[in-house]
């Protein structure tokens, strides 16, 4: 079979998994990597799941690989931080069935809290890393990664960036390869990484890096494209595409598909044949630093930025001083930041948090939007789980403010890494109040199931984890539930738990308004004659409500009928319609 399709980069990685005979996929969602696992789940031949976090996902996939299957895990760049512990030791154990790790970086931080460059992990953990430029390469490199993994007995990275993961290009499809399970044979010297065994494995890892660097010089994953030799360009991933767009055949390219390890001789050979050498790479100067350490004269970050995303525009301007003629609009264009959706269940809670003037340690999810105007009710956002553990530390050193400080964390994030922080609160007795925002879904990444939702990735019904029971089990005695659209009850619950002299959890429960099962079956509108223009309804920051001619007005195309605004109005001006 040979079929051509317009495929998203992430879908092409999933297709690569299918064609490579991969049997096992486990991941935690994270933009821009999420769809790899969603698409993989559409193949009946692949077992695919959402794990509670990236460390668990990584370890389950490694377990599957040790058992003899081709296995895969996907994560965003910051997810790799979570999975870093098993990563470094998996480098020592190596694999049995092939093991591939998909990691998606997010230059420009379209949907992330930092701009870290995952290539440093490949170097630090001494693992090969492939980097595709388009969907065809996403598919082909994923298959090649399994071959490399088994050939060199190593986990292999496939690194994407947002523009590769979320761009569609034409991709040729093939059939699935029949890859039988490898035998599992007990091998403690390889798989029990106690000091005695690990000491013997480390030199094997070092030799492996040398072997793969040698292989890189002849691999088709790296290629030279000769054009005009007055300019030479070393690039990979999306950077290669931008360079190609700008220079076309007016430059020669060393297009790197293997970004770790690098082969010094291959780079030197290329450099020796071109007059002026550019290294064009987004984020950190990884290739450039390697070139310079090996005596290769090149231009990189002295001209190109470390921060943000590249484009053909940026490269043309910085390297050729060329700019397009553009249209212009002189007026002031207000920014349009992302906001909580109309009907978002987080809105009522954040209104109360702001009203009570609390210090709010935040977490990763849609509720991070509670930091924006007009709610502005967040103090911190660090990483998955840091709200709960951060609150513990905050309260320990500021006991005078424990009744004014809370943590907010979503259901999926709580399962990811909130439970350990809560255990610390219970065990080491801080008088902390944690709010678990249970909207029955992993929201920001686009609606993925999690252990609390009662469904698996493949939509198999399961017994949901009960957040109440988890909190009780770790030692929290005060656990209660509240509906965030009942503003009065929410306020009361928060005040009471903050006043209590022991740790407590409030589960703030209402489903995401975007879930198909949520249908309020009505809309709200403002009766202008009754509106006293007090602007109280504006305080909840609903994008459906604005002021027109001095009165509140609800946009019927945006309103989903949650009714939160009705409870805000003291004059009965907001009424249910339909």
């Amino acid at each position: 079979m040979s079929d051509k399709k317009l495929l998203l980069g992430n879908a092409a990685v999933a297709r690569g998994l299918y064609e490579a005979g991969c049997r096992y996929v486990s991941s935690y969602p994270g933009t821009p990597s999420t769809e790899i696992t969603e698409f993989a789940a559409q193949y009946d031949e692949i077992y695919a799941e959402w794990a509670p976090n990236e460390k668990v996902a990584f370890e389950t996939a490694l377990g599957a690989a040790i058992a003899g299957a081709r296995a895969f895990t996907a994560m965003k760049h910051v997810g790799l931080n979570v999975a870093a512990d098993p990563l470094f030791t998996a480098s020592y154990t190596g694999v049995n069935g092939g093991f591939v790790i998909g990691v998606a970086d997010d230059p420009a931080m379209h949907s992330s809290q930092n701009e870290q460059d995952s290539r440093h992990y490949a170097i630090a953990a001494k693992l090969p890393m492939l980097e595709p430029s388009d969907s065809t390469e996403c598919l082909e490199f994923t298959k090649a990664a399994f071959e490399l993994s088994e050939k060199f007995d190593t986990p292999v990275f496939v690194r994407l960036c947002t523009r590769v993961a979320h761009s569609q290009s034409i991709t040729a499809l093939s059939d699935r390869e029949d890859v039988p399970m490898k035998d599992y044979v007990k091998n403690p010297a390889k798989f029990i990484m106690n000091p005695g065994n690990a000491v013997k494995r480390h030199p094997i890892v070092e030799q492996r890096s040398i072997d793969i660097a040698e292989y890189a010089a002849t691999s088709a994953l790296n290629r030279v494209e000769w054009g005009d030799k007055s300019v030479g360009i070393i690039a990979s991933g999306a950077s290669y595409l931008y360079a190609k767009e700008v220079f076309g055949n007016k430059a020669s390219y060393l297009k790197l598909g293997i970004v770790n390890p690098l082969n010094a001789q291959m780079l030197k050979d290329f450099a020796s044949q071109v007059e002026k050498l550019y290294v064009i790479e987004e984020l950190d100067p990884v290739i450039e630093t390697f070139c310079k350490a090996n005596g290769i004269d090149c231009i990189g970050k002295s001209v190109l930025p470390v921060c943000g995303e590249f484009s053909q525009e940026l490269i043309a301007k910085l390297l050729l001083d060329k700019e397009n003629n553009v249209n212009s609009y002189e007026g002031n264009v207000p920014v349009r930041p992302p906001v909580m959706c109309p009907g978002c269940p987080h809105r009522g809670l954040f209104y109360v948090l702001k009203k009570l003037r609390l210090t709010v340690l935040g977490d990763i999810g849609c509720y991070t939007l509670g930091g924006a105007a007009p709610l502005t009710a967040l103090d911190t956002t660090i990483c998955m789980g840091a709200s709960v553990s951060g609150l513990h530390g905050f309260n320990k050193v500021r006991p005078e403010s424990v009744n004014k400080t809370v943590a907010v964390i979503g259901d999926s994030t709580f399962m990811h890494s909130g439970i350990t922080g809560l255990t610390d609160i219970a065990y080491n007795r801080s008088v902390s109040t944690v709010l678990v925002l249970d909207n029955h879904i992993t929201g920001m990444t686009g609606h993925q199931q999690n252990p609390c939702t009662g469904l698996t990735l493949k939509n198999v019904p399961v017994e949901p984890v009960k957040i109440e029971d988890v909190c009780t089990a770790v030692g929290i005695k005060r656990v209660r539930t509240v509906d965030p659209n009942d503003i009065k009850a929410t306020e009361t619950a928060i005040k009471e738990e903050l006043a209590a002299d022991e740790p407590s959890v409030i589960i703030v429960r209402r489903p995401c308004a975007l879930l198909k099962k949520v249908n309020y079956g009505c809309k709200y509108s403002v009766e202008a004659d009754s509106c006293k223009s007090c602007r109280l309804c504006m305080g909840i920051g609903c994008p459906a409500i604005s002021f027109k001619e001095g009165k509140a007005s609800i946009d019927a195309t945006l309103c989903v009928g949650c009714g939160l605004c009705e409870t805000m109005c003291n004059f009965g001006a907001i009424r249910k319609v339909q």
Partner: protein
Amino acid sequence: MKSTTNIMIAGVGGQGSLLASRVLGALAISKGFDVKVSEVHGMSQRGGSVVTYVRYSDDKVASPVICRGEADYLLCFEQLEAARWIEYLKPDGVLVANTQKMLPMPVITGAAEYPEGIIEDIKAKGVKVIDLDALSLAAEAGSEKAVNIVLIGAFARFCEFSKEEVEACIKSCVPPKFLEINLKAFELGYNSAK
């Protein structure tokens, strides 16, 4: 030299610009072009300003993104987004603009003002503008969610593909139960763009 055609779609998260880019991508592939479509997922989809790119060529398309001064067509789902992204349109490009206004949060909270006369200002600069009330036309077709297909209808009058080709592509991309509404939306968009 063979050149690439660039279509940029700018809207507000939730307006269906992703589907529009997929329809246009499918259209270009059906005519044998090389195609790249670049999308935005995740955080910015939550009511934020969202842009997607469709690039096609009879040669290879390299970059997946469109930069300032490169777009042959700019399809804007909302007035303010037309102002925000007009720099991306080539000086002789075509702007297809929905006249709908969606107030961004800084305007709702009173921290900023929604500019008046955006479309007129852009026209006054000599830009070719096709403006239409796509929201009303979508409602007339049977669903306010069909704004994207109304705009594709307007685009169809000016693009290199025939009306029938675009229509056939919509049929292949839209779920059957919404097809009737979308074909009507397409027709209304096509007829209102002159």
